[in-house]
């Protein structure tokens, strides 16, 4: 009886034994060929069409194959055979943080609520090697389908978590819907207190407008830069 190598389980025949060339020698070459190809390719692929082989000798271990999407997170192929996400130690994008609840969105200055299916959220762009932190927002708010009133200061619309609060106030102009005759925008003010205020500029947007919301997609700032 021969022996197997540790990782790939190549069969190493004993000098005294009879060896089957195809099942014990050439099969080893197929195994290393199979593994090495996947490991030296660098790709994203459809997990539904590339399955883990069931053959015991050529089956992969968890984590055999790694993928890196643009987020810099690493994904390792698992035996189940889903892709198991592994967060890169130097990844620079956090998961989206949902602020879609009453702890953050305030109704004291208007019935502001998350826009259906597009709730507001932010993510932290940083890594372990730096303290410079950017905050990127997404999602939308609306007044529950009511008309966005012109020239109205909403203070505050949101009170955001400390990790998203900038050192100095940040201002952004964002789209706020259209009418048949004009277009409106909202000035978003993110205060160092954590309050997020809206100031409506332009025309009143009727409740029937298909863009009757405030989109936060353009709000991205460095929270650490000083005055």
């Amino acid at each position: 009886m021969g022996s197997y190598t540790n990782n790939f389980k190549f069969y190493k025949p004993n000098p005294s034994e009879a060896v089957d060339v195809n099942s014990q020698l050439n099969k080893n070459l197929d195994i290393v060929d199979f593994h090495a190809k996947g490991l030296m390719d660098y790709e994203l692929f459809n997990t539904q069409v590339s399955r883990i082989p069931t053959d015991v000798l050529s089956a992969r271990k968890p984590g055999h194959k790694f993928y890196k999407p643009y987020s810099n997170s690493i994904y390792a192929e698992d035996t189940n055979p889903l892709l198991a996400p592994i967060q890169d130690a130097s990844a620079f994008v956090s998961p989206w943080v949902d602020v879609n609840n009453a702890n953050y969105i305030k109704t004291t200055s208007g019935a502001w609520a998350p826009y259906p299916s597009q709730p507001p959220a932010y993510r932290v762009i940083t890594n372990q090697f730096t303290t410079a932190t950017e905050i990127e927002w997404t999602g939308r708010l609306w007044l529950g389908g009511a008309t966005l009133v012109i020239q109205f200061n909403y203070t505050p619309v949101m009170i955001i978590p400390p990790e998203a609060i900038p050192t100095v106030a940040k201002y952004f102009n964002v789209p706020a819907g259209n009418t048949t005759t004009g277009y409106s925008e909202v000035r978003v003010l993110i205060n160092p207190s954590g309050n997020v205020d809206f100031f409506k500029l332009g025309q009143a947007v009727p409740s029937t407008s298909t863009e009757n919301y405030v989109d936060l997609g353009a709000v991205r700032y460095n929270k650490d830069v000083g005055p």
Partner: protein
Amino acid sequence: MTYFNFTKVAPPSPSDPLVNVTTHLNNNWDEIETKFSSLITMSGNIINAEAGQEAVGSVAQSFYVSNGAPFVMRSADDIQTSWSAWTAIPLNAAVVARASFTPRYRTNSVLRLAELSGGVQKDAPASAWPAALVVITNLLPLSIVPIGNLSFQQSAAAIPTTPANGSAGYHLIDTNGPNTRIQVRYAGGPGGGNFIMLDGIKWWY
């Protein structure tokens, strides 16, 4: 399913020469085992690597990049640490900084992205902006001029007396001789403060 040019062993026949199991076969498996095992572990190195090829590095779950030589790897370029420090923008005499909002810029050498922060006023009393382009600076380095030599972006501004008129600053970034220039035009009616912010202004260079 072949990827490497392995020469497979032919099934034996009576005329085959003798094969030494240890030196001809088993040593080969050991060599393959040694060289390729690193590729299936978290600490990988690439054999016969090409420059720029990536592998999982010895630092936990991070990528290394090959410089082209076997086993010689460097850390991948880190995007966040590639940001420069925030640097004060040398302002043109036509504007002044808004108090507590120093106009600054920073650049990212990996992303090749420039980004602004802070705010400006026309003058210290915050007079109304003219209906014309006003130069914020024409002294930024030429190396960060926008792709295509022009970027045109909107930013927030002070609330005008008549909010229905809207208020925003429209920034035009282009070249001016040996430098990169930022100009701004106020859009909307005059009002309290008359500042124009630079938050959110960024461009690829």
